[in-house]
């Protein structure tokens, strides 16, 4: 196997599992260390650089980082990364004077942003301080996109949303509410230097079954219904409610129903639990509120009596699964009618761009989805960019943010006449953390504590109003314990082969046996030696060791960054070095002319 190139900025980035998994590459361990030191404002601002909405995301992020967390290699539960983000937001001081400012002068470039969701707001956040004149056109009367209209206030309080959107508006962004863009061509004629489409995926899927039209008054499309609730157009619902679908939208619909007075809410799933789309924690939160989730019921018809919905007919399903859990066979074993007063359909969302004319020069594929470049987010029409759910279909907030950052870079380059693909590369700086004998500049001791559990407001208090936040945030004791669970995966084990005397001390002290010295061999053979089972992480291989010509190998997957190898090494051949990754945004792009 060839020696590992640790200069490749992706190499150590990938070792920081949470940061690598985060679409916006939030430097998680670095902000957790700031929280540990009580530096909440610094932790907040560090978060904000990459994810823009720490207070919002600290509550409702989809958390792709958590399943990836290294902690799960040695125990079941990941670090409560998301909850700690909220800690930074909850405990920060007033940081307004540390935010990017509205610039003195405009740079003369005008950018139109369609839709006031997280994607457009991120673009504005990145471009407005640089002097770009950003105008956001929003169809609704309030900004925030689905964060306002669909994510219920009991998960995301309105003042948290307002505050973080407000930070960006204060950078000199022109927000035009109640301004639906009805024609792309008309907008193009207004002479903007670039257009960003951040209109989301606004169309909820319908379920055309017998009885649909007759019962229309009591059948609701989930995302439209949530929006109506959010804007107080709907204030009640029937006593018995069926939710069709088990994604995250379904979880918000069922819990919202309870708060509007429903007494019995059932979530109806076509398949077994392993196939549910909702995040595990959203399912748990719903079940805590006594929501019943019924599996293996496939909707067949809406049942009406004298023009009014009285229930729904389901086919009872039976599935055969193979060893890997895939469905190999399915059968209908019967039918059942479940009475209800209302049905909410939560079976997915789609893009829809009725306002983009054929003549606008934007190519759509055969599914009517715009053709977008995955790196630059430019459409087939120069100067028109897409991001968030509008670009590649419904995802989540943190993806919308990352799209926004990337689109902002492209818009900047477009406006400056630069090559969109000539983006400034990430780089990593490594710095030793050794302070002295047995002393490192981070908390290297392994803390065996279990994940702290978020306290919830008591069930009896929860349903009185629609906007009572359920999660209470971490207590100081919980914070103190949870920060220590983080393994500091950005404290990289850096090996200097010429220094090694092959004494094996590092190999023997390593608590997870992820090191070895061995004659070089093909990768598969080396992996077997240290049980490096996961192909997601690299196997580090050194250059030839000076004494025996063998190589040092390390399974990057199991290493717990405890630093004991470096602590034990008599020659400091292993060192724990903080890997600081620099990711570039629009404002620090080098333009080709300067490079």
């Amino acid at each position: 196997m060839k020696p590992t190139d640790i200069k490749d900025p992706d190499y150590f980035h990938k070792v920081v599992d949470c940061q690598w998994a985060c679409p916006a590459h939030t430097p998680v361990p670095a902000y957790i260390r700031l929280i540990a030191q009580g530096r909440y404002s610094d932790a907040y601002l560090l978060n904000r650089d990459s994810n823009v909405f720490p207070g919002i995301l600290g509550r409702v992020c989809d958390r792709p980082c958590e399943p990836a967390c290294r902690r799960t290699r040695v125990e079941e539960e990941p670090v409560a990364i998301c909850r700690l983000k909220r800690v930074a937001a909850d405990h920060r001081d007033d940081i307004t004077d540390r935010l990017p400012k509205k610039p003195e002068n405009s740079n003369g470039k005008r950018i139109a942003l369609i839709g006031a969701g997280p994607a457009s707001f991120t673009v504005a956040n990145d471009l407005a301080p640089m002097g770009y004149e950003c105008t956001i056109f929003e169809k609704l009367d309030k900004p925030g996109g689905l964060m306002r209209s669909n994510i219920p206030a009991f998960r995301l309080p309105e003042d948290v949303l307002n505050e973080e959107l407000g930070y960006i508006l204060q950078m000199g962004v022109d927000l035009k509410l109640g301004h639906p863009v009805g024609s792309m061509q008309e907008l193009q004629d207004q002479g903007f230097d670039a257009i960003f489409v951040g209109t989301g995926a606004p169309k909820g899927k319908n379920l055309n079954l017998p009885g649909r039209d007759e019962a229309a008054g009591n059948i609701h499309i989930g995302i439209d219904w949530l929006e109506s609730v959010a804007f107080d157009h709907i204030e009640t619902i029937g006593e018995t409610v069926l939710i069709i679908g088990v994604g995250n939208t379904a979880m918000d619909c069922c819990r919202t129903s309870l708060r509007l007075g429903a007494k019995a809410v059932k979530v109806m799933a076509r398949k077994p639990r392993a196939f549910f789309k909702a995040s595990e924690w959203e399912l748990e939160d719903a079940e805590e509120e006594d929501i019943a989730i019924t599996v293996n019921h496939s909707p067949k018809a809406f049942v009406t009596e004298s023009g009014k919905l009285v229930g729904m007919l389901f086919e009872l399903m039976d599935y055969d699964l193979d060893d890997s859990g895939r469905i190999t066979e399915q059968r209908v074993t019967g039918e059942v009618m479940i009475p209800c007063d209302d049905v909410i359909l939560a079976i997915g969302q789609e893009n829809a761009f009725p306002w983009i004319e054929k003549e606008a020069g934007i190519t759509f594929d055969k599914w009517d989805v715009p053709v977008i470049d995955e790196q630059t987010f430019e459409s087939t029409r120069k100067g028109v960019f897409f991001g968030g759910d509008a670009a590649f279909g419904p995802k989540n907030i943190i993806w919308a943010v990352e799209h926004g950052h990337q689109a902002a870079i492209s818009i900047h380059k477009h406006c400056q006449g630069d090559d969109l693909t000539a983006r400034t590369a990430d780089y990593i700086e490594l710095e030793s953390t050794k302070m002295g004998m047995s002393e490192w500049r981070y908390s290297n001791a392994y803390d065996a504590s279990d994940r702290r559990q978020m306290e919830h407001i008591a069930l009896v208090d929860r349903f009185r109003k629609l906007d009572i936040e359920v999660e209470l945030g971490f207590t100081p004791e919980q914070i103190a314990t949870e920060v220590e669970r983080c393994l500091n995966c950005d404290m990289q084990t850096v090996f200097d082969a010429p220094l090694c005397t092959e004494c094996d001390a590092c190999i023997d002290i390593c608590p997870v046996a992820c090191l070895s010295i061995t004659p070089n061999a093909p990768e598969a053979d080396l992996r077997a030696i240290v049980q490096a089972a996961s192909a997601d992480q690299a196997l580090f291989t050194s250059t030839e060791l000076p004494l025996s010509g063998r190589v040092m190998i390390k399974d990057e997957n199991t290493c717990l960054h405890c630093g004991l190898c470096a602590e034990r090494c008599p020659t400091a051949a292993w060192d724990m070095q903080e890997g600081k990754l620099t990711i570039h945004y629009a404002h620090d792009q080098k333009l080709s002319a300067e490079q």
Partner: protein
Amino acid sequence: MTSFVKPKIRRKNEPVNALNKVRADYDGTASTLCAGCGHDSVTASLARAFYELSIDPQQVVKVSGIGCSSKSPTYFMSDAHAANTVHGRMPAFATGAIAANSALTYIGISGDGDSLSIGLGQLAHAMRRNVDMLYMLYNNGVYGLTKGQFSASADLGSTAKKGPANELPPIDPAALALSVGATFIARSFSGDREQLVPLIKAGLKHKGFALIDVISPCVAFNDHKGSTKSYAHTYQYYHKAVHADYVPPSEEIMTAYGEGELMPVELHDGGTIRLRKLDGEYDPRDRAAAFAKVLDGQDKDEILTGLLYINEDQPDMHARKNTGPRPLNQIPYAELNPGAEKLAALQMTMR
């Protein structure tokens, strides 16, 4: 916060042995030896061998003398019995213990000072009796614990860290063992686990006295240029003669090696030691050949390693004395002490 203690962590896919123990179950308390000391590496090889053989630590006795090496029993298999004895006197202690209870597995750990300087006489007699134990001689050419004076294994001309060259000829433990009757004689190196771990397993399963002379550099006092027991010197003059693998009774000997290269030696437990020639026609079952080979290695300044001699046919101490297999602590008192009358009768036979 910092830490120097190896935490007990179970990896999700961690392998276990036949006793359902993980390798870490054979660890001891954290070593207090110098970071980089060869001794820690040898100790880790011991732990691995015991783990791989699925030996229950509670059925093991660790005995040692005095020295950095002799501190090592603390650093592996915390669950085993152990005694840290007097400088150079471990062989006598071990002989006594084994006489009383041969049902346990005995491992002696000693240094070159402990074994070849102060304890030479003790070691020689334990070998002569073919006491059934594995004796690990952690050999670094110096008294590490007392700050690096030459020991009796220091080579002629090897220099001290600060000071003159050694003027006395070394005692080669392998040559000594051959002459006084040890029945399993091997040499290895702390840095060569591929060789050492199988040797330890074979030594543990051998019935009789097994000596492994293992070069184990002292990083604090004997790892400099001019030393012949440094890591660098050892790697440079390292020479493998024979490789030995222990094959448990249940497993069949594989025929992966070319014919003639494999020399199986049947053990008392039904297992086999499989020898692989790495250096010409040398056969470690031949005592005279072993002698010649060891002396030849000395002449060539080679560090001759591997299983140098094995004789599975010599009776061990118990067999020779015809003492029964039952441990003394399991023999009822009345049987152990048949009373004054029986004693008087016995004495009468000697009048």
